[in-house]
């Protein structure tokens, strides 16, 4: 796991003789880059597959984004279709259902950020405090496990668990004298169930990155704390948490960038027309409208809108973080 917060500074004594007074010109910067590539070519070879992957799978498809502004016909192709300007965006923003989907997306994301983001951190801190190795390993394996189960199966488990006639949840409720609730058709229950499922499924796996970060904390810090008579609780608050704070912030920025990307396959498996009110998100709206209805251009427009919002959010989060905590993605 890469140590994100603490990348070694690339200063070397053998820098080329480039004057770095004021702003370096483009040719000077290129010269510097070429020098570095020659110097550390092995590292750049290792980097190459990732760059190629980005170019092929993320940058090249951007060419197709133009269909958001076109009357797209599969047969005529991307270049052959006619331009229609902002028509698809007008359609989207003229639709109450789209606006509702945007609202729902933001709400679901905000709630799952609030509850879902701290969960893996807490979990990692808890694992860190366990001293018995076998118990720790077993517990970790158990919490990682749901991550590897397909969403279809998870949805099946959830539907069964919350079933009014045979589900564990309602069986339990009936013991304490509460009438069975048909949870999955109640709009007010959709978000808690969905977000809870997300935490159950992913918190364990996401804790890995924080555990790795905790493992990187200098042990001498703890040793001197013990000498000073600090309690375990104090060590966690004063040493562990501040040490992994850069990782937490980076993960938070990345998470904010994904705020428009609610795991929609899970929603499709769990939602009903009865719960659209709280469950319908941008991606499910795109799915119903675009993919099922064959309107690829409209779906592309909605996707583009999503991407622009996410981009703005990441930029903002990064700037804020840079200003206040000096930790940032770039």
């Amino acid at each position, binding site marked *: 796991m890469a140590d994100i917060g603490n990348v070694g500074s690339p200063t070397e004594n053998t820098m080329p003789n480039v004057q770095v007074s004021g702003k370096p010109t483009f040719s000077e910067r290129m010269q510097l880059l070429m020098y570095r590539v020659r110097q550390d070519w092995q590292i750049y070879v290792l980097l190459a597959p990732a760059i190629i992957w980005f170019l092929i799978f993320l940058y090249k498809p951007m060419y197709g984004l133009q269909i958001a502004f076109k009357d797209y*016909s599969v*047969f005529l192709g991307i270049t052959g279709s006619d331009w229609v300007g902002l028509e698809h965006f007008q359609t989207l923003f003229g*639709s109450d259902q789209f606006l509702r989907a945007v609202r729902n997306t933001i709400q679901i994301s905000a709630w799952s950020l609030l509850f879902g983001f701290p969960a893996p951190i807490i979990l990692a801190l808890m694992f860190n405090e366990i001293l018995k190795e076998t118990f720790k390993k077993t517990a970790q394996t158990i919490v990682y496990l749901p991550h590897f189960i397909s969403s279809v199966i998870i949805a099946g488990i959830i539907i069964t668990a919350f079933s009014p006639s045979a589900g564990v949840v309602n069986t339990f409720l009936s013991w304490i004298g509460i009438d069975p609730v048909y949870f999955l*058709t109640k709009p007010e229950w959709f978000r808690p169930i969905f977000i809870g499922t997300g935490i159950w499924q992913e918190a364990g796996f996401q804790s890995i990155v924080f555990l790795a970060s905790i493992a990187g904390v200098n042990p001498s810090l703890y040793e001197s704390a013990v000498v000073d008579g600090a309690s375990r609780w104090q060590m966690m608050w004063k040493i562990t948490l501040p040490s992994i704070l850069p990782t937490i912030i980076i993960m938070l920025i990345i998470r904010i960038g994904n705020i428009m990307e609610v795991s929609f396959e899970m929603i499709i498996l769990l939602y*009903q*027309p009865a719960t*659209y009110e709280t469950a319908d998100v941008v991606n499910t709206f795109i799915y*119903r409208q675009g993919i*099922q209805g064959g309107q690829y251009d409209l779906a592309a427009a909605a996707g583009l809108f999503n991407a622009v919002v996410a981009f703005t959010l990441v930029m903002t989060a990064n700037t804020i973080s840079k200003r206040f905590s000096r930790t940032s993605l770039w």
Partner: protein
Amino acid sequence: MHKLKLTALAVATSVLATTAPAVLAADDLKITDKPLELTIHMHHKRYTSYDENWPVEKAACEWTNVCLKNATIGSNTTNSEEAMNLLLASGKLPDIVGSGRIKDVANQYGPQGAFQPLEELIEKHAPNLQAFFEQNPAIKSSLKAADGHIYYLPYAPDGKYGRAFFIRYDWLDKLGLEVPDTVEEYENVLRAFKTQDPNGNGIADEVPYFARQWEELIRLVTLWDGRSSGSDTYHDYYVDNGQIKHPYAEVGYREGMKNLARWYKEGLIDAEIFTRGSSSREYLLSENLGGATHDWFASTAGYNDSLAEKVPGFAFKAMVPPASVSGVQMEEHRRIPVKPDGWAMGGTNKHPVETIKYMDFWFGEEGRRLSNFGIEGEQYTMVDGKPQFTEEFLASGNVNSQLYLIGAQLQARGYWMDYNYEIQWSNKYALEGIDLYESGDYLVDQFLGVAFNEKEQKVYDRYAAQLRTYMLERQQAWILGTGDVEADWDDYMKTLNKMGLSKVLDVMQSAYDRQYGS
């Protein structure tokens, strides 16, 4: 029978008389002297690629001298639309394009040149298709694209019946009840199932009405003279005296929803109907909990055999539709006579005449038998001039799956199903049920769909999907009791119109009038 033969003969001769000598003698099926190879894309969710080694295809190749070569794109997906898009995006279309979803693609891209118009070729070179269209003018109309041309040939199902009302006859006997004839009696029977413990386990765990698809609950609005769909697709538009309507914006629907909400609240309907899903029939029947449903004849009747040991006395049989409040007995679901599956001729095909003759072959006697029953002597033998599946073949497992394996009943081909093939392996309860339904006139005409022109398509795309979303949201809310249909109705209708219902109905109507000519 004799009369039928004569008319068929008359049709055939009239076709012969009007067409060029290109028509071949009946016993000579050769289309070309030299073998001709045509390329084909064939994609269906059950077989994602064409196989030249299918025995049926080998026979067709031998008989007609036209042999197909596989050129399927996207055979690694089971989604035919996706495969079709990959094919179109590749820019090179094979001579024949067969798909589980050909209709929309052909109607949309045919006018742009992706596929060849077929009606002239059919008139000149395809006597079997010509005869089929003369017998089924509505099917011919339904194939037309917005520009008036025909760009594909469909899979045409045969036989009338699809779903039916099923009920536990043994439970009725046990409680001393009659098979319900009217909606009131139906309600009383369901209530008795709920309260009088017909499965005898001492717990009121019976689920009176259940369904694998929750839309089959909405289907019950027909009992209050509402409609739930005009075709075999759920929530579809329907035609009322030449007028296109949406079932969910009509008064009968409102009345039905009001009563179904009441039934739901009382527990006459499976409380979990929206989430129980496709395994509900298997589960509720085998656990001896389910009382009544609305489902397909053959597969539902099959439980009488498979559960005979597990549930003693089990008798889950069809009943005629109960009379509605105004006394109408309607079975809204039926087998639709034309499906969106089929095949089309690629725009760059250099042998249109041979291709249409080849497509025509499958609508002829030999081709139809081949595509329905497989190979004579292997899967079937001729008994009294009719194909009859052999005992060994019927015993070899699921008949449809076995037929796909040899290349028969391929719905990504334009062909005409022969219902006799299915009768031969339906169990006796299904056949009894069908006889029961034959005894009355319960079916309604189906809406076979329209092809939009560009302008109409835009209007439809803009409003239709959102309208449906809204309708379904309200529908479930009413059933679940979070809304009251009576109180909400005026608002509901106002919202529908604000969301463009009347605009969608208008374009539907203009497309319908153009296509079916009123």
